[in-house]
């Protein structure tokens, strides 16, 4: 048992060291006295806005714009990654100062956040399968399924048109694939997205006039007017100097609409080198070797993600085990009010989805003044959820110990507590080990949900790699294999511990090793 505990401690230590080592390796060359501009975006599947390009480096036209703005402001830009759905809530939580992520300026959103002046003006582009009949107005799409992304101007436009069945996707790549597959009739999305994700696909084509007008603005927290002014001044400066036109030209996004909006010449001021590079890097004809080489390039990301998954899972399980144990004791032996409390907790937690609990802990609690880091929120969410299940395991274990054991303990002069501690609990521990291990393995898999609170665990890594390589199948298999690999040692550990603890059927000389099972004595 001691060596089992030692092994667990070792794993936790390993995970923790990995985490801190990763944190320290971040570049810290810039002088610290320089003020910081913390900016957030969802870099997954987000070309050409902000995304991880070749060599896993951040790039994108918004990335360049915010870098230019920060430079203009004399601030050091600091990137904070967040999930698309969490970007706006994160402002209120003060996770970062600004969000630049293709956010449309709408009256709805203007009520929630402050916006900078527009930095990009574009329209919605309808994309259909190659050869499908052309469309000239949204009314013609009546009765058809049209895909788009959630929380976008395109979605609002589609929903305002009666008779269209709107399908919302989390990733534009999947939406365009479904058009090519024939699952949906078309996709309506902002022009930059269409240009980058649908344009190069030979099975898709653009149709119809530019729909609507979309203006992107940089979002700030409601109470951050001074920074809004600072950002606007910097934006004006880089537009006036032509730097903005250069950036947009290189990304192939300098359009007549933009020229009109900024009152500058229509011609691009630079060749669209960044667009060409993106198309080249995602060309589907890549050989197996180059694809494999690309995965090797993701090795540091995968290691870090796997360590994070392990760390969140182990700490979450430690929390679940201790809270669950207390709950079980309260429920089985506690006085009436405690018993009711424990039962309530267990029923409420088991009756609600883990994802909702996580989102409440991370995005809901700040409303009552409790702000937790993503890591703490993830561990807390997993731990408190699994505690309910652990409590039921322990309760079953405690109730399974024959009554005569406690009687014998009491007859020997032990108090109830002493009897629990020395006689009942050690025996129930052995009984509950198999279900607890099972739970740990499912917790390891459920830890994938922490990617929803901005942590880049294995599932977060999957999102990032798949949307960069468009290889959903291969990446999925790779990530699944890593989950499996991480889980295996724990299955083995559990079996070993179980054998070590199965004392009542073995003689003292027959202690199992970690890899050698105990010989069972022949049954008589």
């Amino acid at each position: 048992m001691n060596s089992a505990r030692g092994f667990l401690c070792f794993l936790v230590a390993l995970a923790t060291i990995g985490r801190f080592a990763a944190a320290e390796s971040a570049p810290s060359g810039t002088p610290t006295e320089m003020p910081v501009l913390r900016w957030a975006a969802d870099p997954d599947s987000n070309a050409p806005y902000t995304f991880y390009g070749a060599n896993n480096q951040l790039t994108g036209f918004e990335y360049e714009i915010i870098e230019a703005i920060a430079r203009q402001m004399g601030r050091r830009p600091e990137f904070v990654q967040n999930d698309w759905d969490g970007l706006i809530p994160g402002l209120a939580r003060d996770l970062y100062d600004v969000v630049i992520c293709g956010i449309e300026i709408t009256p709805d959103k203007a009520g929630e956040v402050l916006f900078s002046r527009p930095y990009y003006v574009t329209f919605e582009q309808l994309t259909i399968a190659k050869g499908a009949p052309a469309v000239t107005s949204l009314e013609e799409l009546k009765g058809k399924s049209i895909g788009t992304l959630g929380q976008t101007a395109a979605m609002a436009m589609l929903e305002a048109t009666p008779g269209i069945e709107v399908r919302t996707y989390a990733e534009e790549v999947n939406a365009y694939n479904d058009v090519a597959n024939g699952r949906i009739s078309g996709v309506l999305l902002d022009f930059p997205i269409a240009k980058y994700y649908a344009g190069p696909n030979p099975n898709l084509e653009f149709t119809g006039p530019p729909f609507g007008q979309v203006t992107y603005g940089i979002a700030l927290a409601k109470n951050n007017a001074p920074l809004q002014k600072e950002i606007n001044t910097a934006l004006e400066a880089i537009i006036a100097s032509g730097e903005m036109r250069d950036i947009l030209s290189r990304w192939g996004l300098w359009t007549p609409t933009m020229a009109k909006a900024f009152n500058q010449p229509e011609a691009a001021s630079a060749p669209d080198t960044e667009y060409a590079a993106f198309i080249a890097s995602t060309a589907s004809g890549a050989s197996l070797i180059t694809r494999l080489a690309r995965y090797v390039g993701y090795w540091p990301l995968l290691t870090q993600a796997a360590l994070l998954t392990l760390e969140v899972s182990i700490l979450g399980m430690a929390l679940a085990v201790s809270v669950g144990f207390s709950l079980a004791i309260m429920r089985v032996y506690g006085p009436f009010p405690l018993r009711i409390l424990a039962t309530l907790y267990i029923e409420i937690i088991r009756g609600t989805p883990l994802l909702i609990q996580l989102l409440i802990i991370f995005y809901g609690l700040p409303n009552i003044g409790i702000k937790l880091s993503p890591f703490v929120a993830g561990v807390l969410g997993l731990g408190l959820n699994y505690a309910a299940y652990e409590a039921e395991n322990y309760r079953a274990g405690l109730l399974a110990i024959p009554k005569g054991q406690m009687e014998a303990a009491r007859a020997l002069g032990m108090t109830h507590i002493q009897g629990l501690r020395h006689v009942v609990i050690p025996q129930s521990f052995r009984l509950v080990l198999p279900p607890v291990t099972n739970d740990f393995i499912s917790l390891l898999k459920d830890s994938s949900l922490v990617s929803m609170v901005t942590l880049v665990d294995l599932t977060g890594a999957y999102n990032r790699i798949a949307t960069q390589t468009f290889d959903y199948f291969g990446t999925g298999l790779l990530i699944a294999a890593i989950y499996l690999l991480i889980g295996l040692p724990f299955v083995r550990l559990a079996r070993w511990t179980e054998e070590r603890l199965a004392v009542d059927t073995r003689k003292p000389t027959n202690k199992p090793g970690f890899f050698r099972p105990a010989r069972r004595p022949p049954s008589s």
Partner: protein
Amino acid sequence: MEEITGPILEAQGIRKSFDETEILKGISLAVENGDLVSIIGPSGCGKSTFLRCLNFLEIPDAGRISIAGISIDLGELDSPFPPDMKVKAHALRQQVGMVFQGFNLFPHKTILENVMLAPMVVVGSSKDEARSFALSTLEKVGLSALKERYPATLSGGQQQRAAIARALAIKPKVMLYDEPTSALDPELVDEVLKVMRDLDAEGMTQIVVTHEIRFARDASDYIVFMEGGNIIEISDEDEIFENPKDERTKRFLRRFL
């Protein structure tokens, strides 16, 4: 240690009901230091309940129990329990060893650990003290060679002897046995009874609820016959067999003679 005068164990007017059914109807018994007393009687007569009341594994509804100088008076049926009952019951249990029909050894501990546990936890003995006393106790019941084994690997007779050793480890003044041989194969009964005889020879006070009429007759100082929640007859071991005073005792014993 102070000399105890009078009976070492005294029970007076013990009553106990489970769900409206009265199991013990006011039982009184006094046992002198060093006596070996057998309690016999038909199934359901309340003899096990009476034994369990003696060390407060069951709390009697009424009556008074006093063992080795610790006296607990529960008063009449409707009177509330004395406030210090729990504390006193706890102290009383430390003077009384108990052996169960089903052994109730701790399966996750070796025989030696089973015997060492209570002295360390309850009495606060050091590990070395507990160990050396446990070894001598195991010696007494003839289990020294098996001290490192786990209970499940022992025969029933060996397990029950280990359970006796475990009960002796808290140095009790009185030993209670609840049908100690009922769960044993016939050929294993004698090794357990021998241990009890040895303890009797050492002067241990023992109360045995048993179906072993032969043992009761051979080893007991006297026999208590119970039926229907009452003590019907207390008698010298030969007297009760040769000349039972009560008709019910006669009927019960007829089957064994």
